[in-house]
């Protein structure tokens, strides 16, 4: 049975943290600063867990999450039709993570980097779905001119630095982006996403060490979707409460329900403030769930259909926000109208992606190097 993201951490466990921290503090009292605050962010977040969004904000979150959902469904369909090839990792189920976090960024300053499951993070920036879909179909109009594909997409204009296919590499690269923010004194932070699988890569901890040592402005985000490809977290990870894994580097952790966009946003506010105040890195664990296989060619035999259905029925981030919106007085019709609009946008992006030309053969040799030698 998979852990239930929403209830994974019982209150009892949260309560148990304090004495443990105390004990550790006593043991190393001589070296510990009095203000060692590994758990303060969690406490601050727990005190006010749901972001107080107004209706317009919530409608925007709803729209963006729905765009990701419908876009990814369409991508899956185009894959099935052979229009998208290779590896294609869908973000369905995890929408609240990218929207909740990225809506709290300062678009002029902050940078984002992630792994190969990157479509949602790009859409969260408001990047035109057409150029993303056209990249998936390998067309000239794609955001990487068709030369990157699903896993390798970038938008330096939006300070989105990819889109990386090697598990965990984006964490060290994100450390470098954070170093650039600090070096340039531009006031920006780097949001570096990685999965529960990547969380077991050594370079993640090498980066934790340097980030804490140099007080880098970086927010590490573990998107725990419960499975590292086909291996459940409890089968791959000695410590499945990933937010604790910064402790050895004195990086404060936060444990967040990644299936509720308002909780994610509330946590982002706390984490980003900490980093912007110059207090160094934060490690956030976003508990979420991927409805589809690891990639399109994964039949997901390692979990039951009932488990997936339970997530869809009881924890779906879009349904959850829809419920909140209806409680605030929005009607089914209003929300349906959004759905219709999104479907149109996605259908247009698919048309564009299917009908755009492939890259010219000459593109084979361009962009290998920037300069001529």
């Amino acid at each position, binding site marked *: 049975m998979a852990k239930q993201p929403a209830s994974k951490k019982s209150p009892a466990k949260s309560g148990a943290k304090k004495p443990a921290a105390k004990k550790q503090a006593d043991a190393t009292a001589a070296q510990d600063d009095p203000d060692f605050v590994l758990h303060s962010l969690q406490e601050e977040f727990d005190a006010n867990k749901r972001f107080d969004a107004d209706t317009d904000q919530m409608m925007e979150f709803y729209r963006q999450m729905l765009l990701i959902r419908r876009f990814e469904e369409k991508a899956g369909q185009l894959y099935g039709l052979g229009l998208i090839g290779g590896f294609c990792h869908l973000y369905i189920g995890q929408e609240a993570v990218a929207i909740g976090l990225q809506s709290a960024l300062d678009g002029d300053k902050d940078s984002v980097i992630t792994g190969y499951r990157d479509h949602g993070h790009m859409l969260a920036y408001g990047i035109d779905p057409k150029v993303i879909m056209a990249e998936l179909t390998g067309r000239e109009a794609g955001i990487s001119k068709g030369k990157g594909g699903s896993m390798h997409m970038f938008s330096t204009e939006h300070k989105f630095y990819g889109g990386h296919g090697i598990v965990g590499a984006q964490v060290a690269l994100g450390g470098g982006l954070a170093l*650039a923010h600090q070096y340039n004194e531009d006031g920006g932070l780097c949001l570096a996403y990685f999965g529960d699988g990547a969380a077991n890569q050594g370079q993640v901890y*090498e980066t934790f*060490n*340097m980030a804490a040592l140099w007080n880098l402005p970086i927010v590490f985000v573990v998107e725990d979707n419960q499975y590292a490809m086909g291996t459940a977290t409890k089968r791959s990870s000695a410590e499945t409460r990933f937010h604790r894994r910064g402790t050895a580097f004195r990086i404060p952790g936060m444990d967040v329900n990644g299936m509720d966009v308002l909780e994610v946003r509330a946590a982002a506010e706390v984490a980003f403030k900490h980093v912007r105040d110059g207090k160094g890195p934060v490690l956030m664990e976003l508990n979420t769930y991927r409805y589809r*296989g690891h990639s399109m060619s994964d039949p997901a035999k390692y979990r039951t259909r009932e488990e997936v259905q339970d997530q869809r029925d009881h924890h779906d981030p879009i349904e959850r926000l829809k419920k909140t919106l209806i409680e605030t007085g929005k009607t089914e019709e209003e929300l349906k109208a959004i759905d219709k609009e999104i479907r149109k946008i996605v259908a247009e992006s698919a048309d564009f992606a299917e009908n755009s030309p492939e890259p010219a053969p000459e593109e084979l040799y361009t962009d290998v190097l920037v300069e001529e030698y």
Partner: protein
Amino acid sequence: MAIELKMPALSPTMEQGTLAKWLKSEGDAIEPGDIIAEIETDKATMEFEAIDEGVLSKILIKEGTEDVAVGTVIAHLEGEGEETAAPAPTPEPADPVPGEGKDEGRDEPGGVSAPERPKTEPKSDPDIPEGTTFTSTTVREALRDGMAEEMRSDPRVFVMGEEVAEYQGAYKVTQGLLEEFGPKRVIDTPITEYGFAGVGTGAAMGGLRPIVEFMTFNFAMQAIDHIVNSAAKTNYMSGGQMRCPVVFRGPNGAASRVGAQHSQNYGPWYASVPGLIVIAPYDSADAKGLMKAAIRSEDPVVFLENELVYGKSFDVPDLDDHVLPIGKARIMREGSDVTIVSYSIGVGMALEAAETLAGEGIDAEVIDLRTLRPLDKQAVLTSLAKTNRLVIAEEGWPTCSIASEIIAICMEEGFDDLDAPVLRVCNEDVPLPYAANLEKLALIDADRIVAAAKKVCYAD
């Protein structure tokens, strides 16, 4: 308007499958995300999800049907008349790349043929003005001077690595930089090669100009993923959006009596990677001029130094801005009987060999490649056309080496100029031993280069 539901491909290579089971019946209302069927291949069973909303109006392929081709219409969905973009055209994976995923097709008649690769001519070294004075400088100092000059002129340039700051560099190449530029721009890292190579690469992506020092390139093997997968490929994968102007530098090749794990030449490894610039200079002037060019380059550079050469002194022109072109070999000694091609420490041995050969009446031309990628083919071929005989001296293993590459170039493009087979003088094909006598036996030296040169001149 009816939407056609088509047999999906579950993997890049699937061409047909079994429609194992319908989970919805005709007349059922379908919501996006509903699982409507199960599809089986020999590898997996997968669920087929609806993307559109509507009513399943007609099932065209019965469950249990085997060998249903990808793209076959398997059912009709009656929409609510609200959307629909026309369903995707015929799903025959239009114009597949020949050979993609299959062991066929690359050279089929009518297959896609690659266009001509654009050619560029390497630039020449700038002329050194008459009356320029020269200062004898060690390679170590020349490298440092090159870095310092670029750090003075470009505030984005900084150095990071193990022991580069307070210790002044494990091999003292960064001596004095901390004092002049301070800890913000001369950063001591923990011993964490994979991590700091990634941080340096990310900083370059973020707009800085990092110089990442590896204490030796042997340790960069822990970091090679970032050099190859992150730094070299990103510009291409991003369609030219995301540059990565980073310099990875440090000593490369055999040092002295440090055993197999600390004695290896990575020149051929990095030189095989498109997207990288690989530089391996020999003397001080080239070390300085190419270091400055490497730092200014918009491309990622692997800069291979050599510990045994650090302390050697050579003249460096006293110029304000001595920058050399990347990708241009240098004729170190002109000659007419045989060409000896080398790079890095091998150049010194080649020059020594040329002196010996001169004493025996053989006039050898020595070419220092200086840059291993892009390789200055023309310099090699021009010299070959003159001497008709060629030897490569490389302090490194022979298999899949720069020497192998030079031989291939001579075969492909210089065959008619050859009067003898091209020979390579490389290290012995063994891990480098510790014992002094065995180490000496394993490494190249001038005598072996002399012997090879005489052999191709049929003079022994």
